């Protein structure tokens, strides 16, 4: 980190360059040390958690749920009846004991998910939330101006489509099941899952249509 050289010169150490910790870094290191000294945490577990959430859990999980719902009517019904159980059945279990609800987009209703209070999010199927999901403008405007928010994401819905906004909590998280794009008859589950973006499962995008590569 470059230092103010006139200051360093005053002290006669023009090339002395020591380390510096910002307050947040120092506080986190302090907390980790105190908890580790008390045996309350296992420092090795922290890396495992980060590895899990950065590389192993992500929106590919949710995309597989959506693709299966598109191709398997029994599974789609199970998802409607008890999404927590149906999604656990695919091996995607939440670690916070939360319940999941699947909300299905139709020509009449478009669903969109927010957490107005903080950042509750279906981690087990979507990984960690993007920064915009956690931002104050999204949390406020998803409720007050959902159509404007969708426009900012490049989504324009037909006039007759209503927007339902679901407010997540620590106990209940929502997964949007986007509408299956046209022209995907005969697609395999893997091919279909490739059309399902993270944002389409939050409700700020639509599933991708294969013909043009653009959002439908």
């Amino acid at each position, binding site marked *: *980190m470059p230092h103010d050289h006139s200051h360093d010169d005053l002290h006669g150490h023009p090339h*002395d*360059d*020591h*380390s*510096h*910790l*910002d*307050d*947040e*870094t*120092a*506080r*986190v*290191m*302090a*907390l*980790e*040390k*105190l*908890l580790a000294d*008390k045996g*309350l*945490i*296992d420092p090795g*577990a*922290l890396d495992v*958690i*980060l590895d899990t*959430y*950065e590389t192993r859990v992500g929106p590919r999980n949710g995309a597989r749920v959506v693709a299966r719902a598109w191709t398997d009517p029994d599974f789609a019904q199970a998802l409607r009846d008890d999404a927590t159980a149906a999604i656990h059945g695919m091996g995607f279990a939440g*670690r*916070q*004991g939360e319940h999941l609800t699947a909300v299905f987009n139709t020509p009449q209703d478009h669903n969109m998910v927010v957490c107005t*209070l*903080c*950042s*509750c999010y279906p981690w087990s199927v979507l*990984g*960690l*939330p*993007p*920064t*915009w999901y*956690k*931002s*104050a*403008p*999204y*949390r*406020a*405007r998803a409720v*007050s101006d959902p159509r404007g928010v969708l426009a*900012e*994401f490049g989504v324009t819905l037909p006039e007759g489509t209503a927007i339902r906004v679901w407010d997540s*909590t*620590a*106990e209940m998280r929502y997964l949007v099941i986007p509408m299956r794009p046209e022209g995907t008859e005969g697609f395999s589950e893997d091919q279909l899952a490739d059309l399902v973006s993270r*944002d389409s499962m939050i409700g*700020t995008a639509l599933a991708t249509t294969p013909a043009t590569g653009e959002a439908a």
Partner: protein
Amino acid sequence: MSDARLPIPGPDAGDLHFFAPWQAKAFALTVHLHEKGAFSWTEWAEALSERIGSDRPAPDAQSPQAHAEAYWRDWLDALLGLVQVKGLAEAALIEEAARTWQRAAEATPHGTPIAYEAGLEH
């Protein structure tokens, strides 16, 4: 809550969740403490909501980095508050240990690992 006209930061910001190592560490500590049974996730969400809903101004900048930093600072404050409430670590001791880490850093040449002991006052 913020001005309703504020633009949403970076819809195309991609999959970057953490913009500094301390943010990732604060996240992992929270998940780990929860998994160890230190608090319920509902208790955590309440603590975080309280911080995020407090009167701290929303960042003026629209960059994802600025928003992420404000968010993770709230997250860290919520975590420090909750460990205090739960009697896991006292705020005064955390602040003292943080200052010790900072003194240790000041006493350590750049590029050398920082030892906690180097910051202890004699």
